[in-house]
């Protein structure tokens, strides 16, 4: 199938770069997932998180150390 827009370009090029094969149904699932996830991912990428320190020695069973 010919790519129709940037989404199709991204999906087709990404999968091709990895050498991953798909059939039409899988491709439809991937497009649907991309339409759901990509807009909030782009919003996330817009966030500058450099001021948020990550937790060293993350222990999810406890509150974060102060």
């Amino acid at each position, binding site marked *: 199938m010919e790519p129709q827009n940037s989404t199709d370009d991204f999906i087709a090029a990404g*999968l091709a770069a990895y050498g991953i094969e*798909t059939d039409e149904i*899988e491709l439809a699932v991937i497009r649907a997932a991309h339409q759901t996830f990509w807009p909030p991912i782009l919003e996330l990428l817009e966030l500058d998180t450099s001021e948020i320190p990550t937790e060293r020695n993350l222990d999810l069973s406890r509150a974060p150390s102060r």
Partner: protein
Amino acid sequence: MTDALDLSLREQAAAIAAGNVDPAELLEAALERIAERNPALNAVVETFPERSREMLAAAPEGPLHGVPVVIKDEWPLPWRAQRFGAADMLATPAPGESGPYRALRDAGAVIVGVGNMHELGASSTGSVSVYGPARNPWNTERCPGGSSSGPASAVAARLVAGAVGADGIGSIRYPAAYCGLTGLKPTFGRSAMEGHHMAGVSTTIVSGPLCADAGDCRLLGSALFGEELRQGDPQGLRIGVIRGEVSEDVAPAVREACEAAIEDLRRETGGEVREIELPELAAATLATVLIANSESLGSITPERLNHLDPELSPIGRGLLKYRVLLPAIATIKSQQLRALARRTLAAVFEDVDVIAWPAVPAVAPPLEAPLVELPSGTLTADEANVRGGALANLTGIPAISVPVGSAEGLPIALQLQAAWGRDELLLDAAEAIERGNERRWVDAAPPPARGAEALEA
């Protein structure tokens, strides 16, 4: 003996301990009931009567001595490898002694069957499985919830009084909510998890109990935790509520029932309701999904993806392949959002004891089209449910789904979340809600559960 199957988990355990119920007869009755009711539900995907009888013969005098239970198709048993609800789980499972199996065995419980689950644990609906979907006992055309679909359906239909599920992004709480059960997602790391094929990499998945009420979750949870979940006094409970999507973009009947339950909880505990803010909640939802999906990438190679079992559903195949396109930068930022959300929650839990909002924003949708109607429009059930279910998995805090109402003949549930390690408080609070509504919703049972009081529409 059929009547004993309708007892609660703790009543079954007490009756056996007192010599009033023969556990061998109870086991046979459970197997008969599964044979009778399960064909319409597909909740239990495998029984193994001889193994169950052997387990009973060797059962110690533990707190669950002789009590039949179901375990989700997510852990190996010594005689059976898990399938994760899928024809291909990108791992090579093998039979073995998982943590939940050992916990149940050491408590004296008898595993009577394996519960169905959504394929690869990848949905809140339970609508896709290598075994075919489990069905909701309240309405077999509706989703049972996922991914612990079979355990929830089995307990709701009273095939057993308790089941072990797993919760990576709400997968105990969603099916508990859809099936009218109480489901506890423990604090990360508190419940038995060994032997799960992702135990070494997952930072979101935990095992937990699905039962009719909080008292039964306390008993089964104690076995999974390896310590007694003691009853406490939730007097003076400070209940946090938030404005926004998770509590307001919900079906009107859900909002009304949850607000009434919060008032029940406040009244029963002599507590107070405080408005709180969680500004990271929306971003935390995406962060959870990205982290959970990236944690299984270690087993993925292009070669492997090109040779998936053709019996894996097209949705499963497509979603697995899509994972490789998720940008690493988004996952890195997600980990930073996780740190921020944990710090925010730590501050919030200095001001409140629990946070309350609907467990799911609408009642169980149709299996054929798992869509929900919300004030904002029509959404897939997964898009809608994850909004309220993800935060506990992202941050590690415990959460519980409590039945609090009904609409369209289907259950409605409230979710409570508490600070790390305060799982017992959630059970105390759930019991306070049960007292507040005179156990109306935890004692209601769906049509397949004979002799039980039907839920009023």
